[in-house]
């Protein structure tokens, strides 16, 4: 079975631009979460979606948005990019909402110049 897949793996954008990151969860998993990992730090929670509804949001500005599709894949959108948005963006899937382990994709490395 395929694990969590993310695309693209690397991305370079200019300040002020918009970016869309994509994630496909493990088959059968209905929950997708997004995390931002700045170099040298642990991942920070951005969003959780379960059954296509937002179930949690971290302390990120409204420039960050996400959605989940009927096939449970997900997109993370970031508008008006800032240099500080440069990070590794990780997608994680789990089969339920609630305390449980999550399985991560390989991440998308976003560089804002």
């Amino acid at each position, binding site marked *: 079975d395929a694990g969590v897949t993310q695309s693209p793996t690397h991305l370079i954008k200019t300040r002020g631009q918009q970016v869309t990151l994509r994630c496909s969860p493990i088959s059968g998993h209905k929950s997708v979460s997004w995390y931002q990992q700045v170099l040298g*730090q642990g991942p920070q929670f951005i969003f959780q979606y379960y059954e296509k509804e937002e179930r*949690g949001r*971290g302390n990120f500005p409204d420039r960050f948005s996400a959605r989940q599709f009927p096939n449970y894949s997900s997109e993370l959108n970031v508008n008006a990019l800032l240099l500080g948005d440069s990070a590794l963006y*990780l997608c*994680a899937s*789990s089969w339920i909402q609630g*305390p449980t*382990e999550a399985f*991560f994709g390989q*991440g998308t490395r976003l560089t804002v110049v």
Partner: protein
Amino acid sequence: AQTVTQSQPEMSVQEAETVTLSCTYDTSENNYYLFWYKQPPSRQMILVIRQETYKQQNATENRFSVNFQKAAKSFSLKISDSQLGDTAMYFCAFSGTASKLTFGTGTRLQVTL
């Protein structure tokens, strides 16, 4: 809000030796999950071991075991017979009713010959 603290930024161990990574956390919840994740230079966040806190028995996965002390809110990871492939960043993480993962700042483990 939950917090997770890893007080050892870097550790080193010789191949075949045993090393223990420390983690403490703070929460007002009674039932939650704790995890150790490994992140090698490839960036993929890999689940090493999980502990359901309603279970008294400490979790074990091959060479990896935990020492879970609920009253002390402590959750350490012991790696036995260390191998070169264990070289990575190790993150302690908490999952409660909010279901998001809260990570510590990580411990960089270097396994040497």
